[in-house]
């Protein structure tokens, strides 16, 4: 039985055991209902870290106001169905934000600078018997990547370097899956770029180059004209500089510019990370949330009828291979575990980075799947014991071995 199935069955049996306690039963019914909903993603961060901007960017329109809210994003072309929770600043009301995060399946922790990152919320969230098993539901977002790079056009490149250094650090890697830089304002502008804005930008580019460069030197200069000032508010100086550079380099239509803006602002990476770590693994995250919800009931209202459930919950957690797979996925992607490119790709495929079906995991080569699984199993068993590889890599290989074994069983 897979983890989601186990969680589902546990929840249903708990509901039977607690049928006479209205509070517990209501809570459990809520958990069951939540199981089938889309992933809930909470966006948290200190004041001014760009929470609402990022929520708007993800939503593709201006939805978020001050003080938080809940927004349902229907499935789109490049984005699966998602529920966004915009939260108030963490320090204004830590208890409320923590409650919202427990209500969410995954968390985007925003921070302006990696050094000053306030990780107390993530620590509080992972300080839970079940959440602590595997921190698979959090991403740290460097939401003002443009400032990290001093507002230069290539700011995102250097922000990526900063992120790379931090995602391999012990502190962050034990609290989240990955560190992703994004220039939230530029991303939001790219998502909601209007024809008028594009025309204005194109018009600016068409004018004298030297004059435009002088304007781009400072926000003050660019904002001298009210129309440009509005553009500046929407894009930020980095966004304006980036957009103008992109138009100069030949992004001559609005969709082209928008796509480039998303790419260069780091938004595409963020969206990939969200889908790779969260929405593609919706069931695992939902199972995780359900198990946490179940643990709360079992702890708050212990009763003899629920005693076997406690034991079983522990058993399920101890054997939860899906969490280990997600951690390995992140370790391979972030470079915490380093394998040669070819092996890395295979490992990623086997742990389900490109789809969790047996066929997607094993690849379509015409060979019978069971045979493929068996040969992969043998190969990775060797890697898991290969002394040439480092400890992190061998550990990753061991997880891949377990995935292969499961594949060999299911394809049987």
């Amino acid at each position, binding site marked *: 039985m897979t983890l989601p199935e186990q969680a589902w069955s546990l929840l249903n049996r708990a509901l039977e055991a607690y049928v006479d306690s209205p509070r517990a039963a209501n809570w459990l019914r809520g958990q069951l209902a939540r199981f089938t909903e889309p992933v809930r993603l909470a966006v948290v961060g200190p004041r*001014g870290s760009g929470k609402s901007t990022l929520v708007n960017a993800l939503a593709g329109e201006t939805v978020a106001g001050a003080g938080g809210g809940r927004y349902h994003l229907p499935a789109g072309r490049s984005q699966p169905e998602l529920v966004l929770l915009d939260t108030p600043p963490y320090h204004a009301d830590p208890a409320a934000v923590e409650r919202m995060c427990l209500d969410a399946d995954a968390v985007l922790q925003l921070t*302006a*600078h990696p*050094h*000053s990152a306030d990780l107390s919320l993530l620590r509080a969230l992972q300080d839970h018997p079940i959440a602590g098993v595997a921190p698979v539901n959090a991403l740290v977002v460097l939401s*003002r990547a443009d*400032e*990290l*790079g*001093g*507002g230069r056009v290539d*700011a995102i490149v*250097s*922000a990526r*370097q*900063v992120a790379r*250094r931090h995602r391999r650090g012990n502190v962050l890697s034990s609290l989240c899956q990955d560190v992703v830089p994004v220039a939230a304002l530029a991303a939001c502008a790219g998502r909601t770029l209007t024809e008028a804005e594009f025309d204005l930008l194109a018009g600016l580019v068409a004018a004298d180059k030297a004059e435009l460069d002088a304007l781009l*030197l*400072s*926000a*003050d*200069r660019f*904002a001298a004209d009210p129309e440009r*000032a509005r553009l*500046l*508010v929407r894009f930020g*100086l*980095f966004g304006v500089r980036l957009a103008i550079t992109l138009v100069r380099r030949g992004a001559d239509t609005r969709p082209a510019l928008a796509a480039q803006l998303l790419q260069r602002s780091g938004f595409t990476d963020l969206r990939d990370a969200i889908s790779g770590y969260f929405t593609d693994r919706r069931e695992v995250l939902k199972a995780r949330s359900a198990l946490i919800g179940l643990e709360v009931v079992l702890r708050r209202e212990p009763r003899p009828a629920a005693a076997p459930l406690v034991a079983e919950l522990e058993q399920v957690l101890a054997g939860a291979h899906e969490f280990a797979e997600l951690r390995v996925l992140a370790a391979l992607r972030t470079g915490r575990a380093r394998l040669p490119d070819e092996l890395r790709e295979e490992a990623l495929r086997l742990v389900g980075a490109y789809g969790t079906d047996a066929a997607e995991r094993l690849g379509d080569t015409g060979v019978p799947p069971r045979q493929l699984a068996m040969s992969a199993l043998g190969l990775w068993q060797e890697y898991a014991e290969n002394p040439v590889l480092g400890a992190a890599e061998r550990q990753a290989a061991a997880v891949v071995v377990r995935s292969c074994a499961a594949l060999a069983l299911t394809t049987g």
Partner: protein
Amino acid sequence: MTPSPWLDVLDDTIRACGVHARTDLVDRLRTRRAELGRAGVRVLVLGGPGQGKSQLINGLVNAPVCAVGDDVTTAVPAIVQHSPAPSGAIVTDDGPRRGIESPGRVPVAVESVTARANRHAGAIRAEVGLPRKLLEPGLALIDSPPVGSPVAQHTHRTLAALAQADAVLLVTDATSELSAAELDLLGRVVRLCPTVVVVLTKIDLAPGWREIAERTRERLVRDGLPATVLPVSASLRLAAARTGDAVLNEESGYAPLVRYLHQDLMGHVEVLRRRSVAALVHLTVEQLATPLREQLTELRSAGTDELTMRWRAAGRRLEELQRESTRWQTVLSDEVADLIADLDFDLRDRTRRIAREADEYFDVADPARDWPEFEQWLRDNLEAVAKTNSGWLLDRFEWIARKIATYVAPRGSEGLPEALLAGAPRDHIGDLRMPAVERFGVGQKLFVGMRGSYSGLLMFGLATTLAGMPLINPISLGAGAAFGAKSVFEERGNRLKRRQAAAKTATHRHVDDFFLTYGKESKDTVRLIHRELRDRCTAVAHELRTEITDTAKRIKQVIDAETAERGARAREVARRIEELNLLYRRGHALAGAAEPRGLTA
């Protein structure tokens, strides 16, 4: 204006540190004094990571001498100062290998010196010399590693550099307001180095920098931190330098900053010195006075509490003992009187019972035959009585002694007079004399028989003579024989009765004797023990009283001595604090004197 009044104050402070045996402070102040004696002004550029500290200096000297990057870049302080030609050097401290007194100094090309110093493991600072008009009067700009960077050593190095700074530029970028950490840092910096300016960088990037600057100013005023806020943009300044664009330079906001450095700081070196010394004196006095103040409060408040408590306890104990002494004496005599009465009754009761038993015995028994056996029995019984009675006496006394002991010495029954109980009455039974017992021998029997038979013979013989028979006839003979036998029989009974009565009397007398002698001796013993017990208890009580009185006296002496010493010490500490306060006021006067325009917040 007298030449350097601050030197006097500083020297006095150093002396004060010496007096307070703070050699660490003396060393630090001496070093600082030497630094202050040199010409030139050191301006430390300080701030959190990624705020643009290095770029600010690059903007000031119009050259990329300090390495800049998007992540934490600066790892060691870099000193930028005037030199006739561009020069650079890395100062390393290679530890014991080269000796502390000769840190290595490696010349490096000026363009790459900071970048290499940041990567150099043993580097402690980088030195950059540039021919700049701004630096010429002796201005040195110090770039510092970020405060609050994940590498703890960075913060440490920066704070060490802070101690040597004459003025501080606290750098924060204009994209956000001052954070709590920065405000905290500013508060700390102001205490160490009072001349601080907050520089708001990256105003080219932030459209709302004017608002941020205004809010920062308000915040500083609200927190009572005296610092000017200068918004600048290094990128604009560098761009202006490249193109020679005066307008752009004006926009960069560097002009006020340069003016501040050039005129307000370099123009008033003496005031800077005074301020630094004032801050230094304040800090030092604070450090010296804090332990003294604590000492003073301690001296004044606490101290003899425990001793006083013990002294009071001793007094209370003494009173208690006095109260108890009359009480235990009464109890003792009461108890002894009870004991005597009880013993007397017991003895009487027991002897009576024995006498009664003896009477019953001799109602039946013949003393002539059973006397030895009876004598043994009586002796045993009396002995048992004596034993029981004296045992009881001892037991009761022990009990009394224990009871009294708790009164005499309530904290443990020391000196319980166990030994007193050794002497007990013994062997008062004496010899029991056999009562004079008439034996009824054959001759006596014969005589009595004859007497009886004679009267019988005579009686019946006379009676039968009337019938014509002779006086001696068979009847009279028969009667004589019968009467004789009867007499003998009766005589025997009588004699037994008499014997028994005699035996009973003898027994009574003996038991009475026993009662008298034993009773007397028992009472004597009781009195003896009573007296001894009383004496002993009195002695113990006295001893105890003396001991407690002595203790109390000693404690009192200690308390008195300590209070006196404490008072002396408190006066001494207060005097020292007063001295330090004087120093503090002198320092304050230094800072307050001749505040020039532009340096005030």
